[in-house]
């Protein structure tokens, strides 16, 4: 198995070879291709691998400090024919080599778990996701979706099948950072938690950092979801249209200038409001859409991508309760990567604008809204200092926070705040041999009112046998974020969130992460991964409590501790794919009882918040036969904490209110907070699909499936205001059709 290695820690030859790998058919970058320089033996044949690596998300790999000489350049990737050519490396030169890989259909039938981007884990805290991974999960639309896939991972907890909130290893949604080609998006998950703004067809790669992420990512204390969209086809026009009971979608892409410019559009709109009564007998009460436009330019020495994305969601989490929720993302950004010979190392520049607004309206028509608008720019580069390659970058983010509030967050008045943040990060990788790789990093964020943060990061990979067959990996770091998201967590029926900047009046949210993982390949088709983690959170804003179930609440600060372990087993050998993931976790919060308002005697109150899911088991399987693909996903998870009610009262303000003359005020009393657990959750989703080639340019894909196949009544939450048990999705059969042309 190929291992990256630098020849020496000290620069000697200052020779750089940049290899850009594209697909011959589509002209788009190939991510994860193995790029190697082999020496020639005495017979003049290619011999041992001297240098090697894997292409990044831009399809680029850079060799540094290569000894001058004659080599064979070899590029391989599953599904493509191997590329080889002789190459001469001369002293003091930088070379850009562009490689086009042709598809090899025969290889597509032999996908092994060991191929590079199929390495779903291996580095502590990281899950690397391909678009193909999403297709294994039955989704009531054509193709897979990132939201459905993420929920099969241990450590990822959804609040329910509505609301679009994901908790990753004990962190709240506002402690996560979602990036789309470096463009921050606040909440790209739809109100139906099955869907996100990222369908299978739009994705190139996704890196999920469940913790322990490097210094390049600043501004999140829990997790990072780094989404890389694929560029449009640079050689041919292609498109598709699809319809299912959940949504309709259209996708079109093609070259503006062959091999140089492409344009892609993807749009989806829900129709579940109209179809739910037919298919499931229930009201839909949700409405959403998303649209992505992407312009890609590939010059001789640089590439640029301009991405525009908009998402919209509106609906009710509890269809029987008059509480309307809505949120909208609008973002546009450009990312350019320059790798011309004049640069010692490639330079990456990103600028953009992102706006997020969410709102809530209640029975009395009170409207609440909150949002965050960001303008940002960042530069990433690399330098050699004393022969050690140092990655560094700096950025500027200017955010405007606004909120119009009433009732629910009575401690917060409506506000409009602005918060510029300066960011800086550096990191370096040291690989003295085939057995060890150490990445150290340091990040810093600075706002005017506070001293700059110091955020050290460390990642270590140990290969006991010098190959990637086994790997022990460690990740640790300190993390800060200059923003808080406040949600009334006592009420699972709302996801309305107030975004508030840290303006120096209080300490920012902070976390310490520690992860230890072990990965083992067994043969070519089987992989096992075990990972333990701990996250220590500080200064989390939580809703204050009252013993009475009332909309009025204030905010308090809590500390949290999340720890646990994941076990993943993966088997992939054509025609079968099987995955089993189990996660055990514990999330505990602690706050001063006086500050929190809890009605218990202890001075410090500890509790398990509503997303503390102790056990989670996912089993995913897919099987290809006779042109069909059958898929199944079964999840079993333990119940989450909730607070029971113990009293319905009509209280009188004695002696001012007389029993005979006043009805009193209706009040519902909570028992000890989060002291009970909801029933267990489990659900089986199945699907069967097949493609039909109607003509050389036209194909049809048909899928039938059932969400919640055995119609399990999984509880979502107990609505205190209406005293109703709110269940998650009932059995939902579907048929989806997609036509594709090229």
């Amino acid at each position, binding site marked *: 198995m190929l291992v990256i290695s630098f020849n020496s820690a000290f620069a000697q030859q200052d020779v750089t070879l940049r290899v850009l790998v594209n697909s011959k058919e589509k002209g788009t970058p190939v991510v994860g291709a193995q790029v190697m320089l082999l020496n020639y033996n005495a017979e003049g044949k290619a011999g041992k691998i001297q240098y090697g690596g894997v292409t990044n998300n831009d399809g680029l790999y850079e060799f540094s400090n290569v000894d001058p000489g004659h080599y064979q350049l070899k590029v391989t990737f599953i599904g493509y024919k191997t590329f080889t050519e002789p190459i001469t490396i001369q002293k003091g030169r930088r070379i850009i080599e562009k490689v086009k890989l042709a598809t090899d259909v025969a290889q597509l039938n032999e996908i092994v778990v060991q191929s590079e981007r199929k390495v779903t884990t291996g580095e502590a805290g990281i899950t690397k996701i391909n678009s193909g991974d999403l297709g294994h999960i039955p989704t009531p639309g054509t193709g897979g979706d990132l939201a459905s896939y993420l929920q099969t991972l241990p450590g990822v907890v959804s609040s329910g099948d509505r609301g679009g909130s994901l908790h990753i290893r004990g962190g709240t949604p506002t402690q996560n950072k979602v990036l789309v080609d470096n463009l921050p998006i606040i909440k790209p998950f739809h109100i139906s938690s099955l869907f996100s703004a990222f369908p299978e067809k739009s994705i190139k790669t996704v890196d999920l950092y469940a913790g322990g992420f490097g210094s390049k990512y600043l501004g999140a204390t829990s997790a990072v979801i780094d989404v890389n969209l694929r560029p449009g086809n640079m050689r041919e026009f292609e498109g598709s249209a699809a319809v299912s009971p959940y949504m309709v979608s259209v996708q079109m892409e093609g070259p503006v200038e062959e091999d140089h410019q492409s344009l892609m559009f993807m749009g989806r709109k829900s129709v579940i409001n109209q179809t739910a009564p037919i298919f499931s007998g229930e009201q839909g009460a949700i409405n959403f859409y998303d649209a992505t436009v992407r312009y890609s330019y590939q010059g001789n020495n640089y590439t640029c991508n301009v991405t525009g994305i908009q998402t919209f969601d509106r609906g009710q989490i509890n269809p029987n309760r008059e509480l309307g929720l809505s949120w909208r993302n609008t973002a546009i950004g450009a990312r350019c990567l320059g790798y011309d010979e004049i640069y010692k190392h490639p330079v990456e520049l990103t600028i953009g604008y992102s706006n997020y607004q969410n709102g809530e309206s209640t029975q009395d028509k009170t409207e609440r809204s909150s949002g965050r608008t960001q303008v940002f720019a960042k530069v990433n580069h690399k330098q050699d200092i004393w022969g050690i390659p140092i990655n560094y970058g700096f950025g500027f983010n200017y955010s405007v926070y606004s909120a119009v509030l009433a009732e629910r967050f009575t401690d917060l008045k409506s506000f409009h705040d602005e918060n510029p943040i300066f960011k800086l990060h550096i990191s370096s990788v040291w690989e003295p041999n085939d057995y060890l790789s150490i990445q150290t990093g340091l990040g810093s964020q600075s706002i005017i009112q506070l001293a700059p943060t110091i955020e050290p990061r460390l990642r270590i990979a140990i290969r006991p046998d010098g190959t990637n067959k086994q790997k022990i990996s460690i990740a640790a770091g300190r993390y800060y974020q200059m923003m808080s998201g406040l949600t009334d967590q006592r009420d699972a029926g709302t996801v309305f969130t107030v975004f508030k900047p840290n303006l120096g009046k209080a300490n920012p949210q902070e976390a310490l992460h520690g992860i230890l993982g072990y990965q083992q390949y067994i043969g070519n088709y089987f992989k096992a991964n075990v990972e333990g983690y701990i996250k220590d959170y500080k200064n989390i804003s939580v809703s204050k409590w009252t013993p009475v179930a009332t909309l009025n609440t204030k905010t308090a600060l809590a500390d949290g501790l999340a720890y646990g372990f994941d076990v993943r087993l993966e088997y992939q050998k054509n025609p079968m794919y099987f995955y089993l993931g189990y996660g055990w976790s514990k999330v505990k919060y602690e706050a001063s009882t006086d500050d929190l308002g809890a009605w218990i005697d202890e001075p410090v109150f500890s509790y398990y918040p509503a997303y503390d899911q102790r056990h989670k088991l996912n089993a995913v399987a897919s099987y290809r036969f006779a042109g069909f693909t059958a898929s199944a996903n079964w999840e079993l998870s333990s119940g989450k904490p909730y607070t029971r009610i113990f*009293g319905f009262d009509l209280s009188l303000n004695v002696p001012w209110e007389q029993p005979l003359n006043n009805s009193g005020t209706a009040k519902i009393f909570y028992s000890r907070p989060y002291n009970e657990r909801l029933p267990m959750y489990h659900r089986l989703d199945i699907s069967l699909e097949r493609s039909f080639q109607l003509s050389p340019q036209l194909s049809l894909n048909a899928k039938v499936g059932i969400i919640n196949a055995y119609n399990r009544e999984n509880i979502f939450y107990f609505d205190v205001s209406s005293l109703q048990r709110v269940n998650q999705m009932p059995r939902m059969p579907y048929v989806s059709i997609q036509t594709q042309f090229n």
Partner: protein
Amino acid sequence: MNFRKPPIFVLLSALLITVFLAVSCDNTLHPFNKDKGLYSVYGYLDIDSDVNYIRIKDLNMPFVEDSTRKIDAKVRLTNERNEVSQTLTDSVVEFEGLYTHNFRTTLDINPDTKYQLTVKRSDGKVATATATTPRIADTNVDPLNADCRTPITVRFKPVLKKADLYVRIGFEYRNKKYWVNPFLQTRKDEPELIYMRFTPQDIIAKIFSDDRGRPTIACYQLSSKIFYVDYIHYGPDFNQGSSSDTLDIPGGAGKFGGLYNRRFHFPIDTTNLCRICKSIN
């Protein structure tokens, strides 16, 4: 490290067993903790009233008409000093479809006496609340017939603490009564004394004053020479919420105590002290 390939059928079998066990798990939700709360109790025992009403609410019954129509409760009030007790009768009052149960008692309510209220459910579970009535406080006003600017002291004794006394002072202007809450004071050498010290002008200025706090009407402009004192003297445990351990709710699902509510008045001298001012207004 070398690992043998785990047999897939072993994993699949384990999974199927897990599925079977999961499917058979109980899915019911019990959101109501019926063992924790029994009743709420709201009311007071007025020493000066022949009849007192106490609201009893079954905490386990939600706000639905049918569930509030009847109450499973037997209510009894006992004078712990002389052990005289009475079973209370229910007076049902409906408010917009919700039925409230207000239990009536004609038991003599005496000062400085502890009373125990028990509410018993048919299954034998009992909620209790206690109320202690206050001692009757002597009142004293000095001096009487003071003019508008002369300090007047009103005393109440014995009163255990300031929180046990609610006082308001009233006057009439243009045939309408106005009320002011004065500042209550204590003395270390007389622990059960609560007093207030004010001039009539101070009281008037709390309602009628300019930007600088000066009164805008004078005593001679008042409709009456009489100042009124309304006060409620609470029992020592009245403001502590429910005293019943069975309810176990800090701050109370309930409020039950003893009190009396009285009024007295005293005259003031409304002579016009400002000979040259016809009217400050």
